[in-house]
């Protein structure tokens, strides 16, 4: 409770300030150090994209934020509070493999958590879900099962499902990597819309450099568990300073 801890920052005081903060975060898998005393912050409402070679620790950052992993050292603050199960409710995630619940219809995939986590009534949750599914272009698929949808449609449902929780931060983990090429554009268009029309903070791992250029306020270039370069997309894509960034960008283009 805020009154018990007067010095604690509340979400009001950090509005426009930093929403996500990594402080000297280290993550090892066995003998491999995936993240090495990583420091970085993401400000409220900003769209930050993580780029870099596979295995450079980008996805690990998202998984740490989602508490799917715990850091070996350092700490992670979200909205000024140490990350725990309660704080995690401010974060939503869209996965590379969609991970929709195959035993539920599309509508229930989107209403399940708002009803059972946020305590919305069934009607409120359905209304919210219908609005979001409409927005991602799937208003006509409410009663379909995930397996009856294309990969691109499934991923758009997954986006609606994450947004239904009204998260402050949306994590996007290579959300187009598992899609057939012709389905990528539809998903990215939806995300561009969301980036433009909402004030949601986005933290995005992607290999779609054009998309990263379009939506990002800031791009972080990762290599071997560290941020080796960061800046606005024009700078990172236009005039990268670091040799590794230049190598990486020429390899993916």
């Amino acid at each position: 409770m805020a009154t018990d801890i007067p010095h604690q920052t509340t979400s009001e005081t950090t509005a426009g300030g930093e929403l996500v903060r990594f402080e000297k975060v280290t993550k090892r898998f066995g003998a491999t150090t995936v993240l090495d005393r990583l420091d970085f912050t993401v400000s409220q409402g900003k769209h930050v994209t993580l780029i870099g070679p596979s295995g450079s620790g980008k996805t690990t950052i998202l998984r740490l934020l989602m508490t799917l992993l715990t850091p070996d050292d350092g700490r992670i603050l979200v909205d000024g509070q140490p990350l725990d199960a309660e704080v995690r409710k401010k974060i939503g995630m869209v996965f590379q493999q969609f991970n929709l619940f195959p035993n539920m219809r599309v509508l229930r995939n989107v209403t399940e958590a708002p009803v059972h986590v946020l305590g919305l009534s069934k009607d409120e949750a359905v209304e919210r879900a219908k609005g979001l599914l409409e927005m991602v272009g799937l208003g006509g698929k409410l009663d379909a099962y995930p397996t009856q949808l294309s990969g691109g449609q499934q991923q758009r449902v997954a986006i609606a499902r994450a947004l239904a929780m009204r998260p402050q931060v949306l994590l996007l983990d290579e959300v187009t990597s598992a899609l057939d090429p012709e389905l990528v554009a539809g998903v990215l268009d939806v995300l561009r819309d969301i980036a433009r029309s909402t004030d949601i903070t986005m933290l995005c791992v992607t290999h779609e450099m054009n998309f990263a250029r379009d939506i990002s306020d800031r791009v972080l270039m990762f290599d071997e568990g560290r941020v080796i370069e960061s800046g606005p997309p024009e700078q990172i894509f236009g005039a990268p300073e670091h040799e590794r960034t230049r190598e990486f960008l020429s390899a993916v283009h």
Partner: protein
Amino acid sequence: MKTWDWSYTGHVLPDLLRGLLVTLEATALGSVLAFLLGLVWALALRTPTRWVRWPVGAVVEFIRNTPLLVQLFFLFYVLPTAGITFSPLTTGVIGLGLHYSTYTAEVYRAGIDGVPVGQWEAATALSLPRRRTWIAVILPQAIRRVVPALGNYVIAMFKDTPMLAAITVLDMLKQAEEAGAESFRYTEPITVVGLLFVLIAYPTSLLMRALERRLGN
């Protein structure tokens, strides 16, 4: 002497069918018990608390590795000495259910393990409570894929019900035995019992196989 007496067959058939009802009843109730208890074991064996996991694991292994008949005798002859008495049929149902629950536990375990890790991760990402994750996400998917395997254990249990004759349950075999003891003719009743088992078990196993194919897609 005739090798097969049709009129005698007709004479014993009503008793055998009465026995069949008992057999089916024992199988149905035993299955329900095995399904529920097996799920309890499977979930208990996944708790992070080793004070739950180890004792349950020991009990499950013990039950799985002792013969059903010994367990039935224990329930029927030994428990009453401790003041716990059930009817023969209830004893049989408990014995069958308990014994087969150690197998269904394994089936559930495989089903739960088969649910992709991404489902757990999605549940975490939505902050679904643990309980809700199990009830709404994991178990529906796990159980769906193990329905045929559970069905096969029902068939196995069905074929084990004659053991209940040993604890005086009037199942099909016991009825056949009594009919035989009365008339000194065992050929007809025992043969009919065998046929009735085939008539029920074989179509059921075909059904399970069909179900397996359907759920496989």
